[in-house]
């Protein structure tokens, strides 16, 4: 297994460095990060680090998904200093969390980016209006002008990072054991937090080194889907049981880097196209297309099963398990669903890990 502790440390340091650029926290991969970068600001994924969101529960019900509760706590505590928040209307929980965050955390910029959940001419038109609206609000809040040139540069910058992460994903799946499951998960998360140029440089440099390295050990190959965000412990636990993750369909994984936007032409239209061309996430309804493509890819990567990791109280993710199980069975893959809570200690998932190991056996 390749030791990437240096890369992780570099990214951790950069992520923690607040730097000069204003930091805009984002909650969902649908947020148009290119607009933030084009305004000279730094997009930072809000990571739910808190394991005890007790202050958040004064605002949000304990039946709200733990990603949102813990993210809320993170922002409340002022640990992560954000100048702005860009949320999306992807789910009811995110919408309400955003409204309350906007109320209690002092922010220069707060925007709920309204994402259509269907793909029609009307929806594309509506999305273009919303992109223009968000762009305008960013310009106004930070007194900047987002030019076509800066937008094109931002698109190129994010495309480079996404492409680098995509290559890393292929390297880890093509050469199982080359990276620890937990290292890959952590690295993707950090790449969403560190300044764009640093993240791209670190991942690209890692790719160059890994291209020359063979896979070092194999195990039971599995895929992971769902919306787990900050749960390195889960990936480490899988590793300990000889399970090698060879692909994912995660909000904190491939859903971030699977698609690029067109760097030329009408840039806003390119951003809208990126959203519509991506396989719809569960919040846009059960997508056979996404599930089928994911399961087939897992098949090609030699996986024997898939684990759906759902945030407890995320209806959309949980609801798609029945279809995922059927799709997996068609390709002779086993499937299991585990419900996780970002706020619960890792040892709580011991039972879930036991169930996975049982399935694998």
């Amino acid at each position, binding site marked *: 297994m390749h030791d990437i502790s240096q890369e992780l440390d570099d990214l951790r340091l950069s992520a923690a460095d607040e730097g000069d650029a204003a930091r805009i926290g984002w909650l969902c991969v649908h947020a148009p990060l290119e607009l933030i970068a084009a305004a000279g600001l730094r997009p930072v994924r809000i990571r739910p680090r808190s394991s005890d969101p007790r202050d958040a529960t004064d605002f949000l019900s304990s039946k709200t998904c733990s990603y949102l509760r813990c993210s809320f706590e993170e922002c409340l505590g002022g640990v992560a200093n954000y100048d702005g928040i860009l949320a999306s209307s992807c789910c009811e929980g995110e919408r309400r*969390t955003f409204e309350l965050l906007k109320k209690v955390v002092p922010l220069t910029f707060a925007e709920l980016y309204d994402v259509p959940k269907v793909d029609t001419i009307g*929806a594309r038109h509506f999305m273009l209006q919303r992109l223009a609206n968000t762009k305008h609000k960013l310009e106004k809040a930070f007194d900047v002008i987002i030019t076509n040139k800066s937008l094109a540069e931002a698109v190129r910058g994010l495309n480079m990072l996404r492409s680098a992460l995509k290559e890393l994903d292929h390297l880890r799946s093509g050469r199982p054991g080359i990276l620890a499951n937990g290292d890959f998960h952590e690295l993707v998360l950090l790449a969403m937090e560190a300044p764009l140029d640093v993240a791209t440089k670190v991942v690209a440099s890692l790719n160059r080194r890994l291209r020359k390295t063979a896979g070092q050990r194999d195990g039971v190959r599995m895929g992971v889907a769902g919306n787990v965000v900050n749960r390195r412990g889960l990936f480490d636990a899988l590793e300990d049981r000889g399970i090698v993750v060879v692909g994912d369909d995660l909000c904190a994984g491939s859903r971030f880097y699977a698609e690029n936007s067109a760097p030329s032409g009408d840039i806003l239209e390119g951003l809208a196209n990126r959203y519509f061309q991506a396989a719809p996430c569960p919040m846009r309804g*059960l997508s056979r297309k996404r599930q089928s493509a994911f399961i087939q890819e897992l098949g090609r990567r030699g996986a024997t099963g898939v684990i759906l990791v759902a945030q407890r109280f995320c209806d959309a993710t949980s609801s798609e398990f029945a*279809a995922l199980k059927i799709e997996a069975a068609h390709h002779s893959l086993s499937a299991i669903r585990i419900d996780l809570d970002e706020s619960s200690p890792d040892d709580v998932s011991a039972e879930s890990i036991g169930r996975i190991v049982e399935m694998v056996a």
Partner: protein
Amino acid sequence: MSRWKRIMRRSLGPGLITVLAEAERVRGRLERPNSRASQILTDMTVEALKDAYSRRKPVVWISLLAPPEIVLAAGAVPFSPESVTATIAWMGLDDVCLLESERLGLSPAVCASHRTTVGAVSLELLPFPDALVCTTDQCSANLNAFVNAAERFNKPLFTLDIPAERDQSAKAYVAFQLGQMVQFMTETVKTNFGRDGLVSTIENSNRARESLVRLNELRKVVSLPKGEAIGLNSATPHFGRLELADFLDVLCHEAANSPKVAGSPRLLWLTTKPYASPLVIEKISRQGASIVFEEANQVYWPELDPGRPLSGLAEKTVSHYARASVEERVDSLLTLADEYQVDGVIASSYPGCRYGATAIPYILTRLSRSGIPALSVDEDDVPGARKEDASPLDEFLETLKGAA
């Protein structure tokens, strides 16, 4: 094993005959209604179920916020699985549906109502649809339940996308989609979709709206019988039916002519009531308290213009009270609390309902700080999914009584 489970297992074409028989039995049981309004409501509901199960007319499944006015104008029967979940639970079939949904892999953390729907679809307890219309509103379980049903029955699904924002461009976007929904209905249901039909259902909808406005005004001084108040909440899928307007007219008349004074303390109810087995409602009633108004019964939309039906329906859809921001919701609740002179607020936070539950702690704190005591009751609409008791309710009611 309950009688219904045994019957269901025996019945051919599984639940359809069973459910129809039960609907008739229910009507028989309610042949001695408290009032004419109850009779109209029961007849309307049972006839709608019969239309759906007997397939006398095309059946279109609709989710919350999908406009039944368009479905009715197409000569089809709007069928709301979310509303029927309560009926299923009332028949005692909820546990078998929940078990089936669990077998299919649904997490127990998902909304019990939609788990029941998914289970009922799998057990073929619901009327087969000719088409489905779903909305992307505050409920994410809803969309997947409809996609699942559309696939299961191999029928076309129209998804009406409702944005989070409620500005002019959001209304225009929804109005544009409603035009597409009309087209969808024409193509899938294949009935004569005359403009006159839509005008007629819009007029019926307006009549019902007008009666509801009058009824809401009356409720500031008189109390509705328990049955009618519950029935009122299940009216949403019937907007556009003449019978709904009749029901509300008669209810207004009856309430005005035999006024009942509300008990004390006076309560405002947030989100929907647990229809299926209203233990909490009964407990409130036993304690002498009254639910004088429900958030869900607000008339939040303006009168619809029959000359511009789609714009009006878009306005109605986008302005739905559940789409309001947290702050708008608090403001609206404070206004209601004042208008209805309530002593306290009870929020029914179904564990699986993100709209109902997400911001409830903040909302209740805001209400309490404004001098309105408020309590969240984790009461599930589907009895089989219930885990928590309602003991804090007793304490809350006692406190309110003490303060009165």
